[in-house]
Structures are given as structure tokens and as C-alpha cells.
């Protein structure tokens, strides 16, 4: 797996394009084979894209068209009713705000702690780093389980507080490995030696030299933590009881999967009931789009860095 480490320094796929450089003609079987490959890739593209397009198309359609199941891959009777409804729902907006708080606060805590342990572990002069690394890796293989962890959170008085969302899952061993590998492979020992001769302490060296040089890896692990935090719902499910603290994913689960309508006023009027039912249907599609939007907007810009981060982590060490 050591070859993959090179990916970090390589900016683009520099593999020479053999089909252009060499004079060997493609044989007919090869051409047919290549056509088959392209058809397969088109299929993959369609299979992944179709459900996504279907959801977006529905979210922009009128409630009655959605409830009649008439929408396929293009909005019918275009309307943004569902979005207006979603953005005026207090529970959904509260969930959105909470998710932002957890994502930003959690990422800050996680990145700080990850660097604080990954950097010393990357230093050769740090005594006992192999033992500590084993202690960390063991937690990937074996855990006490749901209830024993719950008891710890309970004893710390974190149940039903915002802390329960960011502290118990603060450090990922995987992210520590990624950061440590990066520090080890990009910060040469000579740099440290030069800094110590100039009188820099360990902390000063970390702050003024290592961190500025490590911006790419810090960005990668920060994004990993942020997206993980934004998408997680399990911790909220077990630790939170107060609906005012719920992150968006729990609100989503209640609306989308358990079918509990939010903010609906009960009415005896049959026509109004029908309309509300229809609105609830289209609201589901709009909610899916709204909740996935922050992640999907940043994703194309970070995809490549994300990939590199995964690669570095895959290096054994």
C-alpha cells in the first residue's frame, strides 16, 4: 500500500496516455470491449443519478402532483411551496441551527484534540509512541458496547446536553492515523533540528512551522469530522431527550420515517386535511434536498482532498 502515499504529492493523474503515445492500433475486439465499458459506465451514472433527480424534481412540484405520483424526472406544476413551508417550520429551523452548532463546535474540538495526539505520536523522540498507538488501535477492534458507554456519559452528567453530541465521539483513530502519517512524511527531522538551534520549543515549532505546513491535512480531517457530525443521528437518538436540542437528522427521521407531522394544526375541514396531507408528502422531498445541500455543495470542491486523505490513512504504519 505504500505506493498510494505518492498520491498526496501528485496533483493530477499523470499516467501517460498510452493509446496516444504508442503506434499500436486498437484491435477490433478492443474497440468493442471499450464500447461495452462505456455503456457500463453510463449505466452506473444513470443508476446513481436517477433517484437523486427524482427527489429534486418532486421537491419542486406542486403538492397535488406529488401526491398523485405524477412526477418523474422533471417538476410538474413547478412550485416552491414545500420549501417555504420547511423554512417557516420552527422545529426544522431549530434542527438546522443545532446541526450547525454541533458541526462547527464538534469539528473545532475534534481537530484540536486530533492534532494534539497525532503530532507527538509522529515524533521519533517521543518515548512510548508505539505503545500509545497500540492503545488507540485496540479501541478500533474492541469496544465496551452501547450501555457501558452510555453509563459513562450519564455519570459525567452529559445526558441531554449539547456536550453529549460533541465529546463522546470527539477523536477518530482513523483521523489520528491520517494526521500522524502526514506529519511523519512531510515534516523532515532537519526542519525540527534547525528550529531547535534557533531556540524554538516543541510547542512553538508545532504552532509556527508544522501547522502552517499541514493545512491540507487539517482541511481534510476537519471536513471528515464536519460531514460525519452533520450526518450523525445515533448519538442524538440515545443521549438527547429535549426536542429543542435535536439536530436536523433526528427531526428528519421524525418527519420522513416516522411520519410525524410538524407544526400542523388539526382541522376538521376535509378539504384542508387533504391539502395538508398533500403538503406533507412534498415536504419530505424538500427536506431531503435541504438537509443534504450543505454537504453536496462543498463536496465537489473537497472530493479530491478527501480521496487523498483516505489514501494516506490506508498506508500501514
Amino acid at each position, binding site marked *: 500500500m505504500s505506493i498510494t502515499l505518492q498520491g498526496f504529492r501528485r496533483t493530477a493523474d499523470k499516467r501517460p496516455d498510452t493509446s496516444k503515445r504508442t503506434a499500436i492500433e486498437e484491435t477490433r475486439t478492443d474497440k468493442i470491449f471499450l464500447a461495452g465499458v462505456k455503456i457500463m459506465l453510463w449505466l452506473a451514472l444513470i443508476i446513481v443519478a436517477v433517484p437523486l433527480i427524482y427527489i429534486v424534481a418532486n421537491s419542486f412540484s406542486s403538492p397535488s402532483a406529488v401526491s398523485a405520483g405524477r412526477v418523474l424526472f422533471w417538476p410538474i406544476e413547478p412550485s416552491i411551496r414545500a420549501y417555504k413551508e420547511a423554512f417557516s417550520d420552527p422545529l426544522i429551523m431549530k434542527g438546522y441551527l443545532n446541526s450547525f452548532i454541533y458541526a462547527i463546535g464538534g469539528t473545532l474540538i475534534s481537530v484540536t484534540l486530533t492534532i494534539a495526539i497525532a503530532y507527538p505520536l509522529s515524533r521519533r523522540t517521543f518515548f512510548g509512541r508505539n505503545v*500509545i498507538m497500540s492503545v488507540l488501535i485496540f479501541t478500533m477492534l474492541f469496544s465496551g458496547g452501547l450501555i457501558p458507554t452510555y453509563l459513562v456519559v450519564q455519570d459525567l452528567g452529559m445526558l441531554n446536553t449539547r456536550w453529549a453530541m460533541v465529546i463522546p465521539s470527539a477523536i477518530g483513530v482513523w483521523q489520528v492515523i491520517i494526521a500522524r502519517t502526514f506529519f511523519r512524511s512531510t515534516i523532515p*527531522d532537519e526542519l525540527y533540528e534547525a528550529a531547535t538551534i534557533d531556540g524554538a520549543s*516543541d*510547542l512553538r515549532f508545532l504552532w509556527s512551522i508544522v501547522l502552517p505546513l499541514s493545512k491540507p491535512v487539517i482541511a481534510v480531517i476537519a471536513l471528515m469530522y464536519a460531514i460525519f457530525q452533520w450526518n450523525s443521528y445515533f448519538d442524538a437518538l440515545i443521549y438527547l431527550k429535549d426536542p429543542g436540542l435535536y439536530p436536523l437528522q433526528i427531526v428528519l427521521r421524525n418527519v420522513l420515517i416516522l411520519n410525524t407531522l410538524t407544526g400542523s394544526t388539526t382541522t376538521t375541514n376535509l378539504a384542508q386535511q387533504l391539502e395538508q396531507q398533500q403538503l406533507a408528502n412534498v415536504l419530505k422531498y424538500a427536506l431531503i434536498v435541504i438537509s443534504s445541500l450543505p454537504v453536496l455543495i462543498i463536496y465537489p470542491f473537497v472530493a479530491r482532498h478527501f480521496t487523498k486523505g483516505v489514501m494516506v490513512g490506508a498506508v500501514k504504519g
Partner: protein
Amino acid sequence: MSATFEVKPAPAPAASRAGETTARKPPRTSRRTQAGRSLRRHWQLYLLIVVPLAYFVIFKYIPIANAVIAFKDYSPVKGPWGSDWVGFKNFELFFQNPVFWTLVKNTFLLSVYTVLASFPIPIILAIALNEIRNGRFKKTVQLVTYAPYFISTVVVVSMTILVLSPRLGFVNDAIGLFGVPSVDFLGNPNYFRHIYVWSDVWQTTGYSAVIYLAALSGIDPALHESARIDGASRLQRIRHVDLPGIMPTAVIILVLGVGNIMSIGFEKAFLLQNPLNTQQSEIIATYVYKTGLLNADFSMATAIGLFNSVINLFLLLGVNFVAKRITGNGLWS
């Protein structure tokens, strides 16, 4: 501990006391002195590591110690250590419970199916992507297939439910074109595993393919060139150059997959679960949640979780051992 320029291997008095008295070898610094010197010189690094280390002790190792309540009759008043011992009573009760075999079977089948389906497909996608020239089409396919990985489980499950809905979903519209009456996929326990596995494949294939693509780009282009000169077709080059090249990566991913067979995630199964399909969708993780947090039977839930963790650990170590024997590649070299 290799000595750097500052840790000079000077003969320390402690070395002789530590018992390293082989006369021929030059006196070496004992580990104790090394530790002391490192601590004095780099105390800031040790200070830095205190908080993160405390995190691992509190949130990872204390829970492992807390798992002792699996052998106790847990009482919230007495705490994990003060509660009364009951030996293996909780385990015996669980093994005798008629639900035991159903849980083990459901968990096992669901994960084996997941591993079998999600192992080969990313390899095929990566090889296909690797065959075509770099261009907009290749980039688009990669970007789109990678995207679902970033969507949350809650959203993926919701999408699955909406798309498969008997009244509104387009899947039923599509099969309706062939004259098939609409099917309530989520209401029928027999469809649960297929829904779980294939929505998983939909979500993760693009992501897993990226790992193989990196392995493919690490293959020496000279191998491909010489194969071409020797007249190898595209298919033959895939068979004899690409596949051997990604073998180590594939083995590691398979080992991790098989090793985690009994620890299949709680999140998705729980979300896809409904009263109609519990017969196949109840797995160990969801049962632990219900026993522990909904029924508040802490000792029993811990016992079931512990049983699962131990099996997992042995599975992972066992599979890793076998893989190392057969292919020479394992998780630890």
C-alpha cells in the same frame, strides 16, 4: 528508539544496574533513562497528549471496564462495581432465548450478503473508469457515483422508502409498465435484505472505487506498455496487469469486511425497520438498543453486546491470519 542527534548514546550508570552486562557489547542507554531524558527534553509534547489520552481512557477504556456489568445484576444505586455478581446468568438467559438464533442468523446473513455484493462491484467500476481516457465523462461519472457517500443514512433510508413506496414511488411505476401489480417492498420481510444491501451498494460503490483507482494509478505504466507490445488485448491486460496490481488493496478491504461481519451497523437496520419486517430486520445491534435503552435492562444488553464484540474480535484476527497465510497481505505486516 533510534537515537537522534540530541539523544547521544552516552554510557549511563543506570544501564549496568538494569542488568545489561554483556561485556562485548558497548554499554547501551536503558529504556528508563531514555524515557526520562525524552520526558525532560520534550515535556511539552507529553503535556499536549494528556487531554486526548484522557479522552481515550474515559470514553473507550472505562466503558470496557464497565462491561463487567454483563456478569452482574446492575443496579443504578450501587453502580457498575457495587452491583451483585451473577456469573454467566445473563449469557445463559440470552442463549436460551428463542430470539437468539434469529438474531444471529439475521445479523450473519445481512452482513455476508453486504460483503459479497459490495466487494466486486467497486472493483469493476474502478477498472472500467481506468480503461477510458481522462476527460469530462470520466470526471462526471466519478463525481456523481461518489456523491451518495456524503448523504446521511437518515436521508438515504428516506429516499429508499419514498422511491419504493407502493403508491408514489417510481420503482412501482416502472414495474407497473410490465404489468406487475405494485409491491409493498418495505412491508414484506423477504425484501428487507435486498433493500438494505442494494441501497448500500448504491451509496458506497463510488467511494470504494476511489480506493481501487488509486491502487490502479500506482501500477507501473511500463507493465501496460510491454503487455501491449506483446499483443495483449484490453481484457488480457486487466486480467494479468490490473487485477494482480490491486490484489493487496482488495485483500485488506475484504479482511476488514469479513472481520466486521457481526458488527454490522445499527443505524441503517434500525431506520429501515418497521413492525412488518422485524422478522428479518432485527439484528443484534438493534436488539441491544431495545433491551438496553427502551427496556432499561442494562446488564442483559451489555452481555449481548459483549458477546458480539468478542466474536468480532476473533473473526477479525482469524480472517487476518488466514489472509496473511494465503496472500501474504494482512492488516499488520
